[in-house]
């Protein structure tokens, strides 16, 4: 077995060949599929639980208190305890609710985030699907979640839920544009939409350094729009606790509520992972051209660690935003998107195209 933390492709090839040696090709593919499914499921659960814990700790840090500290050392088992509790909570069927759509909504939000996770390159050779339209696919899939949110609000037969869902719809579709345009800007620089090639292109400098000013503008816009797309504060109008109780998931109890909660955190992870891949070089270590000794030291750290550290840094930025700014009103929210971010973004795209044409980027 040739297991290496630096290149997972030999590891997956080894699994593939040993499976093919012991069974027919059809079965080998089926077993591989099941293995990938289980691996992604486990990863999904661990990251989800960790992020909920991290958010509560970061929030506590910002508000100068301790946060969860009773269950396990430093409260690390708090989210697991919460999850077990939620599993044993009654699933209340609401009177006059649209039962079919009500039950369908959690499926949609979770499946959308699952399909996005599969396309994210965690390390060299550690990517379930490497599509040649990777960036486009991620944008398309991550915006499917809004259908689940709209269904949840509509089917609940609750006025707060409906208002929350409508706000969420307007907000997500608006900020979708900024996410898309910011990523197009980076695709211009990269010249490809395949995520593995985008990372390969950042071997001698991450795109946020290579594209200097337009890349930094694109990153700032992407973080703002990404925060809005995941319905997180300061853009959490869809579930504004003080006005709408819980917005679109008011009527969801027990584990169904947990699915929405989990999907929110996984969407945050996906947004951060895309930012890492496109702006910060994904799993590519920090290299400086010509500094061979320095590069060798950087190469020593496994790519998976690089990827996770960068991703959690971006997630920390998003948590910082949430716990720093007050919630926007819906008119401010739409003004920010349509009158500021969108024109700036279009101009930024042209600026980036001009830089790439004239070779002013590094």
């Amino acid at each position: 077995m040739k297991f290496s933390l630096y290149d997972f492709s030999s590891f997956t090839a080894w699994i593939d060949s040993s499976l093919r040696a012991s069974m027919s090709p059809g079965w080998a593919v089926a077993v591989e599929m099941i293995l990938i499914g289980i691996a992604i499921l486990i990863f999904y659960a661990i990251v989800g639980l960790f992020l909920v814990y991290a958010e509560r700790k970061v929030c506590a840090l910002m508000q100068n208190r301790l946060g969860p500290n009773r269950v396990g050392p430093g409260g690390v088992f708090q989210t697991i305890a919460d999850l077990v509790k939620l599993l044993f909570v009654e699933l209340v069927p609401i009177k006059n609710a649209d039962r079919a759509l009500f039950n369908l909504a959690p499926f949609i939000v979770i499946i959308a985030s699952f399909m996005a996770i599969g396309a994210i390159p965690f390390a060299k050779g550690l990517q379930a699907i490497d599509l040649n339209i990777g960036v486009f696919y991620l944008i398309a899939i991550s915006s499917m979640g809004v259908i689940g949110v709209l269904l949840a609000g509509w089917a609940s037969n609750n006025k707060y839920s409906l208002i929350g869902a409508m706000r969420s719809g307007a907000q997500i579709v608006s900020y979708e544009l900024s996410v898309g345009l910011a990523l197009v800007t980076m695709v211009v620089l990269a010249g490809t939409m395949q995520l593995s090639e985008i990372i390969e292109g950042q071997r001698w400098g991450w795109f946020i350094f290579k594209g200097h000013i337009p890349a930094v503008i694109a990153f700032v816009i992407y973080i703002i729009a990404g925060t809005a797309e995941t319905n997180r504060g300061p853009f959490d109008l869809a579930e504004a606790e003080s006005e709408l109780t819980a917005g679109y998931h008011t009527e969801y109890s027990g584990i169904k509520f947990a699915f929405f909660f989990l999907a929110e955190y996984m969407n945050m992870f996906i947004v951060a992972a895309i930012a890492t891949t496109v702006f910060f070089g994904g799993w590519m270590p920090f290299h400086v051209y010509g500094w061979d000794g320095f590069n060798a030291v950087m190469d020593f750290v496994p790519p998976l660690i690089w990827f996770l550290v960068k991703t959690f840094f971006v997630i920390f930025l998003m948590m910082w935003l949430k716990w720093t700014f007050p919630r926007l009103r819906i008119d401010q929210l739409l003004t920010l998107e349509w009158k500021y971010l969108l024109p700036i973004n279009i101009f930024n795209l042209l600026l980036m195209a001009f830089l790439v044409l004239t070779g002013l980027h590094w």
Partner: protein
Amino acid sequence: MDNQALVLLFLTGAIFVGLVLVFSGIVAPRSFAPQKFDPYECGIPTKGTTWLQFNVGYYLFAILFLVFDVEIVFLFPWATVMKEMGMVAFIEIVVFILILGLGLAYAWKKHALTWE
């Protein structure tokens, strides 16, 4: 392999949610009280139907979104070949974006971007 993996991810998500829901349905307790199944609106009995008309502003933004989202779909293939095509691609996209910018300017002028 890629297309199968997409179906696989879809199924994994669906099976995961389904199994957890079934498990929760088995282990979770159940009780019946008539008021428990009412929609929660801060304790007051809900009045009238929920599914009524809502602010037309949302509709306007949905239409604007459609225009600009389709624009972004067109921009993606352009972005990948920009480097090879050079100046021609750049000038063409400037024209394309100018036409769309006119649309945005029109919506702006007509106060379609102002929330009322």
